[in-house]
């Protein structure tokens, strides 16, 4: 009865199109927001901030960006890591060239650069499809990482070739660099992630979202009913890369503190792809669920033996970890190929009709 929808009537299309036509959903969201904004920050330890809360948010955002491209617009991308890199390096250059710049503005602007690069590498999608398109994104992936390595201007000619996040302050608080506190950074990340999620929800449920989904489901038919495929695909690349770029900037500025080109190599891309797919392609919430699983799981796995008081060699633990993550990926794909989001939806459907079986 918790999820009873009886009695909730819609009297206008506008109400029917509201974000949460079902009251319980709105309530649930409120609860989550309260947790994210108030409860977690009050209770979390430094360790939790650094290894769970902040990375989950950042990875969710990256996955959200990828999901727009792959889940909504149907264009497979394996180059997310590199686009995150573009965002991070753009932010680094802006901050070092214009130290007066507000860091949050810089982070939001850095997405513009990755959007540009994304569109550039998205152009082949007009001709190339499916797995073949993956090659275009992989070309971006490998070329960009190579460029981060070779173009010394990008990292201000540092000897090590790595970038180091400076201490930046805003209204008297350090928001990035070694002086910044994890909680401040968490709030910055949370704000940006919430904002972009809200915008992404609107985009995906509106006209543009439908255009993307149509392109994904059947591009020929989409074109024949009047969709400009070029525009549809390129906007998807742009919006997606923008979000991914911002996620990249957050990744380095609000969390990692330093970055070497390698960081943005293919394992990062795969990790984000995992999150998007395990969470559910074509969903927004899935990205959060996926990130919780993929980011949180190894942390938990590492802690479990400690709780149980079993001593496992850390290398063995790591091997087991990889095996478990691999198996879980397969496991989740098998039980619900459409991801955790779909799983949640089924549960919700069951709750709505509960206690009746059909």
């Amino acid at each position: 009865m918790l999820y009873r929808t009886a009695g909730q009537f819609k009297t206008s299309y506008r109400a029917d199109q509201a974000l949460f036509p079902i009251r319980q959903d709105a309530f649930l969201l409120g609860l989550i927001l309260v947790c994210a904004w108030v409860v977690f920050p009050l209770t979390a330890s430094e360790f939790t901030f650094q290894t769970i809360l902040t990375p989950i948010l950042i990875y969710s955002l990256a996955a959200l960006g990828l999901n727009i491209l792959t889940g909504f617009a149907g264009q497979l991308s394996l180059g997310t890591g590199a686009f995150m890199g573009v965002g991070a390096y753009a932010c680094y250059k802006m901050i070092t060239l214009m130290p007066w710049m507000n860091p949050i503005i810089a982070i939001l602007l850095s997405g513009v650069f990755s959007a540009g690069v994304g569109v550039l590498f998205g152009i082949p999608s007009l001709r190339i499809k499916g797995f073949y398109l993956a090659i275009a994104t992989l070309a971006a992936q490998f070329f960009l990482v190579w460029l981060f390595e070779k173009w010394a201007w990008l990292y201000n000619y540092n000897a090590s070739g790595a970038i180091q996040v400076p201490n930046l302050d805003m209204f008297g608080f350090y928001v990035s660099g070694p002086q910044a506190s994890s909680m401040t950074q968490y709030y910055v990340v949370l704000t940006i992630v919430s904002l972009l999620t809200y915008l992404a929800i609107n985009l995906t449920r509106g006209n543009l979202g439908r255009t993307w989904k149509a392109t994904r489901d059947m591009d020929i038919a989409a074109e024949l009913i009047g969709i400009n495929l070029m525009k549809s695909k390129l906007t998807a690349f742009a919006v997606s890369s923008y979000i991914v770029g911002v996620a990249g900037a957050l990744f380095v500025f609000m969390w990692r503190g330093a970055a070497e080109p390698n960081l943005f190599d293919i394992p990062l891309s795969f990790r984000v792809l995992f999150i998007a797919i395990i969470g559910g392609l074509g969903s927004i919430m899935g990205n959060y669920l996926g990130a919780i699983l993929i980011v949180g799981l190894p942390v938990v796995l590492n802690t479990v033996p400690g709780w149980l008081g079993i001593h496992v060699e850390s290398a063995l633990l790591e091997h087991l970890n990889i095996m478990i993550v691999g198996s879980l990926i397969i496991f989740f794909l098998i039980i619900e190929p459409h991801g955790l989001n779909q799983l949640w939806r089924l549960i919700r459907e069951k709750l709505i009709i509960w206690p009746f079986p059909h």
Partner: protein
Amino acid sequence: EGIFAPNLTYRTGPFAATGIPLMDGQKDYMTMLNERDGGIGGVPIMFEECETGYSTEKGVECYERTKANAVVTQPWSTGITLQVLPKTNTDMIPILAPGYGFSPMANGKVFQWAFNPPASYWDAASMIVQDIAAGDLGSLNGKKIALLHLDHPFGKEPIPVLEAMAAEYGFELVLIPVGLKEMQNQSAQWLQIRKERPDNVVMWGWGAMNAGAITEAVKTKYPMDQFIGVWWSGHDADLKQVGEAGKGYKSISWSMPQPDAPLLADLKTHVYDKGMSEAEDTNAVFYQRGLVISMILAEAIAKAQEIHGTGEINAAQLRDGLENLDISEARLEELGMSGMVPPFSTSCDNHTGHSGAWMLEWDGEKFVQASDLLMADAAFIAPLEAEKSAEYAEANAPWPVNESCN
């Protein structure tokens, strides 16, 4: 209770091959102290590993996980070092990165919390060049030296110093990067070496790259005696790959295996015989280097205990220990480790110790000593260290500097 000294290991991932013997050595040494002496100064050492697989991300997780109680962090990768470096200022935990990390960390005034004894990569570069010059730096004029390096912060470390030396002594430096994905297939790099015909090839390699480079060198018939690696490129298993054909290959090293050292006898009784070790070849260069690394940490702990008059030292106290290391010939003798590492000492403004190193040569079966102790050209390196560390501090302003150092 005890002293919690975690180690951020990589026994997995692409660099596991070189990581494993090092980690084994480190662990066995600490086990031995616990078994034989009940720890250091009577306090047992809790030497725990946290596996990173050489991934920076996992490294940070390990750092965060362990930092609450840890007296030290041993990041074991240049990437992780760079990332935790700024954090240690606020967290006040010393980084111990023996023979790796960021060379300017030698400047203790700027990098209050970072230590890379006994020698830095820049030391290595300087000593290798000296060895090539066979004592006569003037002879380098007009020569061509190729730097075959991993295209990664680690591989790029020696470049500033080598470039400066090239300018100073008139040799030509050719940079030949090896991508992480090309480590196993370096034919392009070696073709390029054949094209450039350098007089010497210096290798800054790691993990699978070493084996790849050495096999390729054999294949292309590059003269082995003109091929020199940094200390992470002198792993026995890499050379076993080619065996006899690798004869003449050299690697600079600040540690030297001493199969007959009394320490090994102690290890045998207290560790191996109790079945507490996983080590395969206890005479290998890397395994014994692992022993030395733990010895440095143990000595620092002992020193800190001595300075602060307490057994259970904390991270800040360990820093004092690390700043006042004095690994003298005599002390090594006491430890049963004579000849395993050159004597060195650290101070407030010298966090490296600049011990110097030997050249080891592959004789077809194992590495043997091939030179006297070489010393880095401190006068050449020091200004560079000062310059780069100042740059770092400026880029990361506000960066607290230890004014109490002179």
